[in-house]
C-alpha cells in the first residue's frame, strides 16, 4: 500500500535529527537538510498528485481505534493536495535559498542545527495539518507548527526586538489556538465526534439550539482562530513584527505557506456551513477581506523597512484571497456555480501565486541584506548596477504582485474580478449591489495602491544613486549561480501560470467541483467558456511579449549609427550634484500620506519649539516620521499594559526563593490531606 509511504516521513525526521549532529561543518548539515527536504517533498508531492489526478486518498493509522479510542484518519482530498503542493514548492525554494542566506551565520553551528531541525519539522507539521481529519490531531500539528516557526523566527537571538517579536508571535498564535480548541470542543459536545466531517452536523445542531446566532458564533470562533494565523484585520498585529525579525528565507516560507494554512482552515470550515447561513457569512468574509486588503496595502506604503513593507503586503494579499472566498460562499447561497468556481478558483490560484511571488520578493531582499546589512529603504539606491540579477528578479515579482500581465498575479485577479462582476446579476437588493460595487472599487484601489507601493520600493532601493554615501559598497556582489537558478526557476513558474493558465486552472476547477459537488454538466460548459477566455489571455500575453521584442528590434535598427552619449543627469544648471537631492521613499509617498493621514498614528518630533534663532543650535537636526498601526498602538498595546499591571500584583507570589515555593508545596499537600479527611 503506497499510501503508507506517508508514515515514512516522521521516520526520516528522526534519522535527520540524529544525522545532523554527526556532521561538524555547515556545508554538510545544509546538504543533509536539503536532501531530506527533497525526499519529504517528493513523497508528499507524489501522494498529492495521486489525489489530484485520481481519487481521494484515505489513510488510517492502523489499530488506532484500540490504542487511542478513536479512529485517527488522514485524508488527502483534492483541497489538501493543492495545499500540499503549494507547501512543497515553497519549502523547497526556502531551503534552497536558506543555504545561501544562512552562510552568513555559519559559525553558530548549534543554532544552525536547531534551525534546520525546526525547518524540517515545520514542513512536516504543515503537511500533516492539511491532511488531518481528527480535530485533536489537527491541534497537535497546529501547535507544532506554531512552536517550530517561533524557533525559526528568533534565530538572530542576540537582538532584543527579535526576541520580543518572537514572543509576541508565540502568544498571539496561542490565543488563536485557544479559540480553535474552544470551537473544536463545542463541536464535539454537539456531535460527539472528533472528525471534521461531523462539523456539518454540529452546525445544524447548534442552529437548532440557538438559532442562526449559534451557527454564526461557532463560525466566528473558527474564523478568529484561523484568521489570527492568516493575518486578517484586526488580528494581524503579529505579522509586521515577526516577518522582519525572521531570516529572509523563513519570512518567505512563513508568508508564502504558513499563513495559507489559516486560509486552508477557513476553506475547510466553509464547506460544512449549512446553506441558509452562507450568504451572511459570505458577505461578512467579503467586507472584512476588502478592509484587510486596503488596510494592508495602505500601511505597506508608509514603511521605511523593506521587510516590514513586504509583511504588510502579505496582509493585503490575504485580503484578496478572502474576497475570492467571500464571493464563492455567496455563490453557494445562490446555487450559482459560476460564482463558486470563479471566486474560490481565484482564491486557490492566488494562494499559489502569492506563495511564489512573495517568497521570491523576500529572497531577493534577503540577498540585498546579505550584501548591505541595511534594512532601511531610504539609505539604499542603485542596487541594479551592482546586483542586476537580483534587481530583475525583484522587478518581475513586483510586476506579478501588482497583478500586471503577463505574470500570474493578473490571472488570479482576473478570476476574482470576473466573480465580482458576476455578482451584480444574482440579487436585486440595493444593499447587496452596493456591497459588491464597493468591493470592486476597493479591489481597484488596492491594485493602484500596490503599484504605488512597489514603484516606490523598486525605484528607491534599486534605481537612482546610492542615497547614503557613508555606506561602503565596494564588496557588494550579486548572488551565486545556484541562487540565480532559483530565481529563474520561480520566475519561469510565474510566467507559465501567466501565459498558460489553462493547465493550472484545470486542476483548480476540478478541486472546487469536488469540494462543492458541482456536477459535470455544469462544470464542462463553464470550463469550455472560460478556457476560450483564458486562451485569449495567453494569446494576448504572448503577442505582447512578441510586440515588445519587435519594437525593441525596431528601436535597435533605427538607432544604429546614431550617436549615443552618456552624461551626468541634467540638473537645471545646478552643477553640485549630491545624492541627497534625489527623491527618497518618504518623499515619494508624501502626496499619498497627505490625503490619508487619519488612518495612521503619526509620531513626528516637535521641532517648532526648537527654532528660536536663525540657526537652531539647541536641538537635534534629525527629523524622523514614524507611522504606527492604530490597531497596534491603541488597542493591543494598551490592553497588554493593563494585563501586565494586573499580573504584576499577582507576581508577588513569585519571588524566586526556593524556600517560599517549598512552603507553597507543603501548604498545598496539607490542604489536600485535610480535604480528603473531611470528605471521608
Amino acid at each position, binding site marked *: 500500500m503506497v499510501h503508507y509511504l506517508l508514515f515514512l516521513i516522521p521516520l526520516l525526521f528522526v534519522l535527520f535529527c540524529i544525522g545532523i549532529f554527526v556532521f561538524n561543518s555547515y556545508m554538510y548539515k545544509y546538504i543533509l537538510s536539503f536532501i531530506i527536504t527533497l525526499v519529504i517533498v517528493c513523497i508528499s508531492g507524489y501522494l498529492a498528485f495521486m489525489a489530484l489526478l485520481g481519487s481521494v486518498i484515505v489513510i488510517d493509522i492502523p489499530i488506532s481505534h484500540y490504542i487511542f479510542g478513536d479512529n485517527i484518519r488522514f485524508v488527502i482530498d483534492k483541497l489538501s493536495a493543492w495545499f500540499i503542493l503549494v507547501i512543497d514548492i515553497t519549502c523547497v525554494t526556502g531551503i534552497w535559498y536558506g543555504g545561501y542566506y544562512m552562510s552568513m551565520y555559519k559559525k553558530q553551528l548549534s543554532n544552525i542545527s536547531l534551525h534546520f531541525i525546526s525547518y524540517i519539522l515545520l514542513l512536516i507539521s504543515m503537511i500533516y495539518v492539511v491532511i488531518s481529519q481528527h480535530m485533536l490531531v489537527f491541534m497537535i500539528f497546529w501547535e507544532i507548527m506554531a512552536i517550530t516557526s517561533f524557533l525559526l523566527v528568533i534565530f538572530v537571538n542576540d537582538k532584543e526586538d527579535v526576541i520580543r517579536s518572537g514572543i509576541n508571535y508565540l502568544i498571539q498564535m496561542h490565543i488563536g489556538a485557544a479559540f480553535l480548541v474552544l470551537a473544536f470542543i463545542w463541536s464535539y459536545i454537539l456531535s460527539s465526534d472528533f472528525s471534521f466531517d461531523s462539523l456539518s452536523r454540529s452546525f445544524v445542531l447548534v442552529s437548532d439550539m440557538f438559532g442562526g446566532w449559534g451557527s454564526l458564533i461557532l463560525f466566528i470562533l473558527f474564523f478568529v482562530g484561523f484568521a489570527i494565523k492568516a493575518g486578517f484585520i484586526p488580528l494581524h498585529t503579529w505579522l509586521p513584527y515577526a516577518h522582519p525579525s525572521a531570516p529572509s528565507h523563513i519570512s518567505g516560507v512563513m508568508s508564502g505557506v504558513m499563513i495559507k494554512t489559516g486560509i486552508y482552515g477557513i476553506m475547510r470550515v466553509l464547506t460544512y456551513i449549512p446553506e441558509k447561513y452562507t450568504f451572511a457569512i459570505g458577505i461578512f468574509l467579503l467586507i472584512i477581506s476588502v478592509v484587510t486588503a486596503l488596510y494592508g496595502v495602505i500601511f505597506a506604503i508608509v514603511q521605511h523597512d523593506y521587510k516590514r513593507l513586504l509583511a504588510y503586503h502579505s496582509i493585503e494579499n490575504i485580503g484578496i484571497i478572502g474576497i475570492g472566498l467571500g464571493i464563492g460562499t455567496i455563490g453557494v447561497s445562490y446555487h450559482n456555480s459560476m460564482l463558486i468556481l470563479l471566486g474560490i478558483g481565484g482564491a486557490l490560484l492566488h494562494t499559489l501565486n502569492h506563495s511564489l511571488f512573495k517568497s521570491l520578493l523576500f529572497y531577493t531582499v534577503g540577498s540585498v541584506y546579505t550584501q548591505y546589512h541595511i534594512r532601511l529603504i531610504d539609505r539604499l539606491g542603485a542596487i541594479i548596477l551592482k546586483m542586476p540579477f537580483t534587481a530583475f528578479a525583484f522587478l518581475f515579482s513586483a510586476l506579478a504582485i501588482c497583478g500586471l500581465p503577463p505574470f500570474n498575479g493578473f490571472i488570479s485577479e482576473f478570476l476574482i474580478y470576473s466573480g465580482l462582476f458576476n455578482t451584480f446579476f444574482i440579487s436585486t437588493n440595493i444593499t447587496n449591489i452596493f456591497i459588491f*460595487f464597493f468591493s470592486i472599487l476597493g479591489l481597484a484601489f488596492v491594485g493602484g495602491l500596490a503599484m504605488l507601493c512597489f514603484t516606490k520600493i523598486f525605484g528607491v532601493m534599486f*534605481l537612482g544613486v546610492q542615497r547614503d554615501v557613508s555606506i561602503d559598497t565596494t564588496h557588494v556582489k550579486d548572488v551565486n549561480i545556484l541562487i540565480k537558478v532559483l530565481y529563474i526557476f520561480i520566475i519561469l513558474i510565474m510566467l507559465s501560470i501567466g501565459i498558460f493558465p489553462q493547465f493550472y486552472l484545470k486542476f483548480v476547477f476540478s478541486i472546487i467541483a469536488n469540494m462543492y459537488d458541482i456536477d459535470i454538466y455544469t462544470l464542462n460548459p463553464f470550463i469550455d467558456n472560460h478556457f476560450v477566455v483564458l486562451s485569449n489571455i495567453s494569446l494576448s500575453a504572448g503577442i505582447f511579449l512578441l510586440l515588445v521584442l519587435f519594437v525593441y528590434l525596431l528601436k535597435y535598427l533605427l538607432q544604429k549609427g546614431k550617436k549615443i552619449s552618456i552624461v551626468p543627469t541634467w540638473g537645471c544648471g545646478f552643477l553640485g550634484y549630491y545624492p541627497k537631492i534625489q*527623491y527618497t521613499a518618504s518623499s515619494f509617498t*508624501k502626496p499619498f500620506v497627505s490625503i490619508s493621514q487619519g488612518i495612521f498614528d503619526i509620531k513626528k518630533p516637535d521641532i517648532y519649539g526648537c527654532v528660536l534663532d536663525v540657526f537652531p543650535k539647541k536641538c537635534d537636526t534629525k527629523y524622523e516620521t514614524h507611522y504606527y498601526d492604530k490597531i497596534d498602538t491603541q488597542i493591543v498595546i494598551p490592553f497588554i499594559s493593563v494585563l501586565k499591571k494586573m499580573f504584576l500584583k499577582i507576581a508577588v507570589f513569585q519571588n524566586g526563593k526556593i524556600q517560599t515555593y517549598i512552603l507553597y508545596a507543603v501548604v498545598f499537600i496539607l490542604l489536600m490531606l485535610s480535604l480528603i479527611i473531611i470528605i471521608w
Partner: protein
Amino acid sequence: MVNILFILLISLIFPGIINKTKAYFGGRKGASILQPTYELFKLIHKGVVYSSSSSIITQITPVIYLAVSLLVICFLYVAYPPLISFTGDFLFVIYLLTLAKFFMIISALDRGSAFEGMGASREALYSMLAEPIIFTLFSVFIFIQGHIISIASIVDVFKDYGFVTLFILISICIMLFLFTLIENSRIPVDDPNTHLELTMVHEVMILDYSGIDLAMMVYGTVLKFVIYGTLIFNLILSYAKHFIILSDIQTIGLFLIIQIVFAVFIGIVESVFARLHMNHNSQFILSVLSIAIIIFITSFITHLHI
C-alpha cells in the same frame, strides 16, 4: 486591420489639432496640423543621450510603453471587428496600461534627479486615484448589458434610445473626457506647456529622454488619447445605431469626426481653463470618481434585472 490603420492615421494629426485650436484661441495662426508628426521624424534621426546614473530600465521603458499602446489599439472597434476580443478583455487592457505606467514611474526614479521623482510620486498617486473611475464605467456597461462584456461590445451596450439612456450616454462621455485629461496629464491636472517642475506630472517624467526614446514616449501618449476617443466614439455609435443605419464608410467618417471634435474640445479646455492648485488635484480626481459612482447608481436603478 483597417481599424488599426485608421487609428494610426488619426493619431498623426491628433496633437496637431489640439495645438491649432489653442493657437486660434490665442489669436495666432499656429503651426501646421502635421507639425508634431514632423517633430517625431526629426527625433528618430537624432542621437540619444543617457544619464550616467541610469540603468537598462531607461532603455526598455519606451519600448514597453509603445508596445502596450500598440497592443491596446488591437482591441478597439472602429468599423470592423477588432483583431483580439474576448469577454473581460477590458481588465487585460486596463492592467496593460497600468504596466506601462509602472515602467514609466520607475524609469523616472532611475535617473537620480530631483525633478523626476516629483513627477513620479504625483503620477503614482493620481493614477491610483483614477483607476476606480474606469472600473466604475465598465461596471455601468456590464450592468446595462447583463453579462461581462468585451471592449468591442461597447458598440452594442445601449439597448434603447430613451431619455435615461441619453443621460447616461452624455454623462459617461463627459466622464471619459475628464478621465482622459487625468490619465494623460492635461489641464486641469497638469500643464503640458510649462516645463516648470512645480507644475509637472507627466512631462517631467520624460525630461531625460531624447531621440528615438522620446519619440516612442510621445507617440505612445498620443495613441492613448486616440484610444479613449475611440471609446467615446463606440458609445455614441451604440446610441446612434438606434436612429440610423450607417455603412462602413459612414462609420469611419463618424469616427474621424468624433476624434477631431474630441481634439478640439481638449484644445478648448486647455485654452479656457487654468491648471488646478497641485494640492487640489486629488480632490478633483475623487470628485470625478464620485460623479462616476452617481452614474452607476442611476444605471443600476433604471436597469435592475428582475
